[in-house]
């Protein structure tokens, strides 16, 4: 495990002391320090290589329940002191807000060794090996003659430490690493072209998918769309494969934050403890999942991470809460300052094969593009690509269609939940079958 930089811990603590001395009631300092390497390979050659390190210090001050924030990548003492002085002056011009305060100091129980979010072998791996990884991923894809073009393969690695100190006596830090590889491809003929790809990002080197597996998934995704056509406008059952369920959950995650609730910009406003989804639906945010890409010992305010049940057998149990939202809504913080951690839908019992078999005519959703999600109403309208299901079998590919529905309705219409949940991305779900959505086509 990497040691924390005593100098940065000292800087954070001394800035807290300086802020207090200058008249702030409460001060929070965070420092993000990190170094990145990123390699882009295209058509067998290195196209871009970036290597760098950076630091940013952020300030939050509260005076008479009034808030100001600031940050700087210029860490000279002169700049930081001035930044703090400005923040205290600006805070006086904000409105007093009784819900503004820093969290009390709480014991961090998460064991960093058990959390396994730092892997020194990521930074130790030679740059040449990383280049080789990306090149190999791409060359496997290009060897498939159905792949028309590679937009390039990228390999990235990151090592960094997050420091936090506040005027309630908190001084914490944790290091983490990540590595990733992705590739994006084109298939098709003439002007009827298709794009898709795949990528993986992990905290530990040994968890990263192999070049072979990334390539295989990317090839499968881009070639299954070749020859896709538009279909008629109609209402049909829709099967979402795990990557599409994740996309749906990303939207749900936006709607379930405390902030969207108190701003009334969520269809879940005022629905706490109500049955908002089918009994087969449970949604969890787990900040303590070992090796999880979203795991962390504490959130960006120093509140310990936890496993939070958000939807339990269809009942809305909690929201994603930071300290402010929790005070405002009168609930304990869930340690979600800075967002969700590992947010997922719990697996069901059905195999994907079984789910496809259950559909007479319908859409197997393979990709979605565009915005078209409205948290306030739960409405969804997006561009879509997929495979047509006929008689329980995947048949021909479809493209240039739209898919529409409402998340609030969809949550009550998930007829089958797959057993294929994997914890790869920070937002994940299994294959699901939705009773009906609208396809916009010809």
């Amino acid at each position: 495990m990497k040691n924390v930089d005593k100098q940065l811990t000292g800087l954070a603590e001394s800035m807290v002391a300086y802020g207090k001395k200058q008249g702030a009631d409460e001060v929070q300092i965070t420092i993000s320090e990190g170094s990145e390497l990123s390699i882009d390979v295209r058509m067998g050659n290195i196209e871009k290589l970036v290597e760098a390190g950076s630091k940013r210090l952020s300030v939050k001050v509260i005076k008479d329940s009034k808030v100001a924030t600031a940050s700087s990548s210029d860490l000279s003492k002169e700049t930081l002191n001035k930044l703090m002085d400005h923040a205290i002056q600006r805070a006086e011009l904000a409105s007093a807000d009784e819900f503004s305060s820093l969290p009390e100091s709480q014991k961090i129980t998460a064991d960093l060794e058990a959390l396994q979010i730092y892997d020194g072998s990521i930074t130790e791996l030679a740059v040449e090996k990383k280049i080789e990884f990306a090149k190999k991923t791409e060359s496997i894809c290009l060897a498939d003659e159905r792949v028309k073009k590679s937009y390039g393969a990228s390999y990235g690695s990151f090592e960094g430490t997050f420091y936090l100190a506040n005027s309630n006596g908190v001084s914490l830090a944790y290091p983490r690493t990540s590595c990733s590889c992705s590739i994006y491809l084109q298939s098709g003929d003439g002007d009827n072209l298709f794009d898709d790809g795949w990528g993986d990002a992990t905290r530990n080197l040994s968890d990263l998918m192999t070049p072979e597996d990334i390539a295989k998934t990317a090839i499968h995704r881009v070639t299954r769309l070749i020859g896709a056509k538009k279909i008629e406008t109609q209402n049909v059952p829709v099967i979402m494969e795990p990557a599409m369920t994740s996309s749906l959950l990303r939207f749900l995650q936006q709607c379930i934050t405390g902030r969207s609730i108190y701003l009334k910009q969520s269809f879940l406003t005022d629905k706490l403890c109500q049955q908002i989804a089918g009994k087969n639906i449970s949604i969890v945010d787990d900040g303590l999942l070992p090796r999880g890409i979203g795991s962390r010992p504490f959130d960006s305010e120093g509140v310990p991470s936890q496993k939070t049940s958000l939807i339990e057998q269809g009942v809305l149990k909690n929201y994603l809460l930071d300290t402010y939202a929790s005070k405002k809504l009168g609930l304990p913080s869930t340690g979600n300052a800075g967002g969700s951690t590992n947010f997922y839908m719990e697996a069901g019992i059905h195999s994907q094969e079984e789910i496809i078999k259950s559909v007479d005519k319908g859409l197997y959703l393979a990709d979605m593009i565009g915005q078209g999600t409205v948290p306030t109403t739960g409405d969804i309208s997006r561009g879509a690509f997929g495979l047509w299901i006929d008689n329980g079998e995947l048949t021909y590919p479809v493209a240039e269609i739209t898919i529409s529905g409402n998340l609030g309705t969809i949550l009550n219409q998930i007829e089958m939940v797959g057993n294929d949940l994997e914890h790869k991305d920070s937002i994940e779900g299994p294959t699901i079958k939705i009773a009906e959505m609208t396809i916009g086509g010809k």
Partner: protein
Amino acid sequence: MSSLNRRQFLQKSGTGVMAATATGGLWNHLLYAGGNGTGSTTLFESKFGVARESMQKILQIALSKGGDFSELFFEYRIANLVRMEEGIIKDSSERISLGVGIRVLNGEQTGYGYTNDLSFEKMKQSALTAAAIASSGKTMKIANLSEVTRDHKMYDLINPVHELELTSKIDAIERAHDAALKYDSRIQKVQVRLSDEIRFVTIVNSEGLLISDARPQVRLMVNATAEDKGELSTSSWANDGGRVGMNFYKDKTHPEELGKRAAEEAILLLSAVNAQAGEQPVVLGKDQSGVMIHEAVGHPLEADSNRKKESIMWDKMHQMVANPIVTIYDDPTIPFMRGTHAIDDEGTFTQKKMLIEKGKLVGFLQDRLSARLMGDEPDGHGRRENYQCIPIPRMANTVLERGDSNPDDIIGSVKKGFYAKTYQGGMVQPSGKFTFSVNMGYLIEDGKLTQPIKNATLIGTNVQILNEVEMIGNDMGFFLGTCGKDGQSAPCTAGTPTLKIRSMTVGGQA
């Protein structure tokens, strides 16, 4: 992995991405110590102590392994933000960014390093990192630096917002807020944000260029949520601004107007229904439909994806790609616009670039690297989000030229169809499939706008859509947005008159 290689245009950049506000004046003595892009000493020399000889040395070190071009991009940026929510000023923030990005080009290859520490040792380390892309060992001698300036009036620095006292900003915010809240008793929550920044850049390169720029950017945004009998609706962000000073909100767009616009949309959305799904004639209103041009035309005509033969347009130069009534250009030099810049982030003077002339493809948006590899000239479209990013070809202000149809006649020509008014944004894939998402529109029945429609995504392929533009209005409006490409965001605008598309697939209810 849902947005790997997609280009998108969002009306609002992610919450909190644009952070930060200084109480006026406090930094000014530092900023104007000869560093306003016109003096003979740059800000980075006068304030941060980077001597010109050091710049020259670092450029040389960057080429120490071979390579045919090296460049230093110095950036100092102060970005401010004030937020009003639920009737109170929630907070204000100030974000300072300082750093240098060092780039080495070696044929088609790019080596890049950056650091926020401008000491010679740290810059040298980054230069050596960037240098590693090359291995020919042939060391090119760099030219002596000579400063170039561009005399222009593209930015309004007369009454710069970043110098204002917070109280005068709060006044504008409160006026926008109150106007929204007063519009209708069903308006429940109003959010207002005023963001401003000043961004100083100095670019030096191995060809001897030394050039600086000081760019202001201001934006006032309002968003309203309405409630009626348990039904909720939220407007898109009504916003305006650009490379302007505070006078803009006195002389051009009043804060009250933005508040009212947001409130009006939220109220209309309360009674809005879903669109009728399927193919239908579509009329794009003038105010925000630039999104479509940005996605369907702008991105596919950026030089990098054409050089790499990835864009669907790469082999169509000098061919007819659109209805002959369509002319499209990108112009970074229009004064005071959100996408405007006098020089790009490689130091090239910007210019208006014709892309499609009367239906024929005539140009790509170039940066230095693509221009050299394609035998074209750089045209000032090489942009980057910040010093941590390499420059890539980007749009600035993309415009579809005015036509001669009366907007009412355009709507009048549609028996049944869809009218797009406000947008959430758009997205395009390199293969040319693009979407744009409408936050609010109207049903067109017998040539008239009738029922309000909510949240509809439209999908098409750019090569088809350009030929389906049937009528072009004699009016003009601009969408202010933030464009995302290769993980970098950039402020842009896109302008269109009212447009009629013969047929497009609309998402909605069957």
